[in-house]
């Protein structure tokens, strides 16, 4: 019984994956190539055009081959428009981490102050409420104009969008620290810095980490769109570039890579959250 429980879900996952691949394969399978044009012309324009195939959608096998080639050589660099998927991902991850860490440096201390002081909370609340719902990409033109650098602008957009969940969760976590722990600190005459780092920070850490986990998810969503706009490097640019190349297999590879990296980032933050979470 237990064995069924353990293996049931992965087995079902594999079945779903295989049926999806089967349907995909059936839908994109090429008819036996009947040449409807002159063989000389066919040689010139290539198979797809020559057979009059309407869909450029690749079969699972095509995508698999493309993926394999990417995995075999992820870090090649053949000029600005032809870099390996590994390099592109590295650019995106570097931008995300940079913007994200800058946001954490600002959001966590500010959130701390907001959480400690109802006055500051009420004073900053209107600004937060207005700034929070702005789509991070709406900042892009302003960032490009003021910062004059597309790469820094992308980092700025990540900074802005990962700020709010961290800020709000930190403020909430700090404000919700149990009164009794603060009373213990007061009766022990614990100084303000020691109280902040030894009592409030560990007490609020799980909530802060939850905010950081939400933020990294949003940052990874936004970086793809931001790189499509600013261009040059990054996985978002890669996907857009392959769209211009009409290489659907490469686009699908890019999408898969985005999903996998996003999952890994989330897993890493989940691990960290678990480290600071304490059982009550």
């Amino acid at each position, binding site marked *: 019984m237990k064995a069924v429980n353990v293996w049931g879900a992965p087995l079902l996952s594999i079945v779903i994956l295989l049926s999806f691949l089967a349907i995909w394969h059936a839908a994109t399978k090429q008819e036996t190539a009947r040449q409807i044009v002159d063989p000389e012309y066919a040689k010139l324009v290539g198979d797809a055009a020559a057979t009059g195939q309407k869909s450029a959608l690749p079969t699972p096998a095509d995508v698999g081959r493309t993926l394999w080639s990417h995995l075999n050589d992820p870090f090649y660099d053949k000029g600005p428009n032809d870099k390996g998927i590994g390099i592109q991902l590295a650019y995106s991850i570097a931008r995300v981490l940079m913007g994200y860490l800058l946001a954490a440096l600002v959001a966590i201390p500010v959130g701390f102050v907001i959480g400690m002081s109802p006055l500051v909370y009420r004073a900053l609340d209107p600004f937060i409420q207005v700034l929070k719902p702005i789509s991070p990409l709406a900042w892009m033109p302003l960032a490009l104009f003021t910062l004059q650098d597309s790469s820094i602008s992308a980092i700025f957009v990540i900074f802005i969008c990962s700020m709010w969940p961290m800020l709000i969760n930190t403020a909430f976590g700090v404000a919700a620290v*149990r009164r*009794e*722990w603060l*009373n*213990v600190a*007061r*009766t*022990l*005459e*614990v100084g303000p810095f*020691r109280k902040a780092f*030894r*009592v409030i920070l*560990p*007490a609020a*850490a799980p909530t802060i980490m939850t905010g950081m986990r939400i933020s990294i998810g949003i940052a990874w969503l936004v970086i793809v769109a931001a790189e499509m706009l600013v261009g040059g490097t990054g996985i978002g640019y890669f996907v857009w570039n392959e769209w211009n190349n009409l290489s659907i297999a490469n686009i699908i590879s890019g999408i898969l890579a985005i999903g996998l990296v996003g999952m890994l980032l989330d897993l890493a933050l989940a691990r960290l959250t678990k480290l*600071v979470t*304490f*059982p*009550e």
Partner: protein
Amino acid sequence: MTEPLIRLEGIAKRFGTTTVFENLHFSVEAGEFACLIGHSGCGKTTILNVLAGLDHATEGYVFVGGREVSGPSLDRAVIFQSHALMPWLTVAGNIAFAVKSRWPEWSSEKVRAHSQKYIDLVNLGGAEKKRPAELSGGMKQRVGIARALSIEPRMLLMDEPFSALDALTRGVLQEEVLRICAETRQTVFMITHDVDEAILLADKIVLMTNGPCAKIAEIVVNTLPRTRTRHDLHKHPHYYRIRNHLIEFLVDRSRAFALSGASADYDPRNPPLVKPGLDPTEARAVEAPPERHGTPTLVAVR
């Protein structure tokens, strides 16, 4: 007469027009174990918080060792009802946090040794590395007690420390507190609902009337010998007299006092000191004339 360690002078707490309690006067001598009994809502916890410096009285003054209380202090350790342990620290970590707060200049080795002494005192040896979530309620409260004692305070303030525990654990911990207090001659101010707990532990029991406008109705002197055990407490002739007196107060007089007001000669600055444990002849022998009003023995003996 020497200055009592704790002295409350006319303290009151009001929220807007509601008066929780007012005009409270009483004192606790050094080395004395005082219990405060009263129904919920009479402001017992507020009084303790005022003593601890965590809350402020609307009126009146609190003096500890002759100095007015203006805020929390390491002199006054609090044992909280909810134990208030930090769940991210181990047992040893929780106690070391307190020790380090008291003596910031100590080396970590000295802090560890000092913490260990108090972990052993409350019989928690072997559980040092555990986190609060892995402990039973009784063990958590032991940590709370060890943490409070580890800073070597001049007094302990306990806010219904055992009320969240089951009866068996409560009994065991009460005896531990009795033993520790006998060893250390610690001054204790404790809030409780439990009449038997008060009789077992206290030297004097402060009785509060029901709120709002709660007052101190009287102060019961526990005339039982100080070396007590749960086992043969009830065999002493004073036990049931005191117990009946307290129960009768809680059931009837705490409300009656609040409704009809005190008798004409009630002086809130000097609440009547009663010794219901003594029978009338003993009382006359002990208490020098003039006879006090509302002789307690009349109330206590049935």
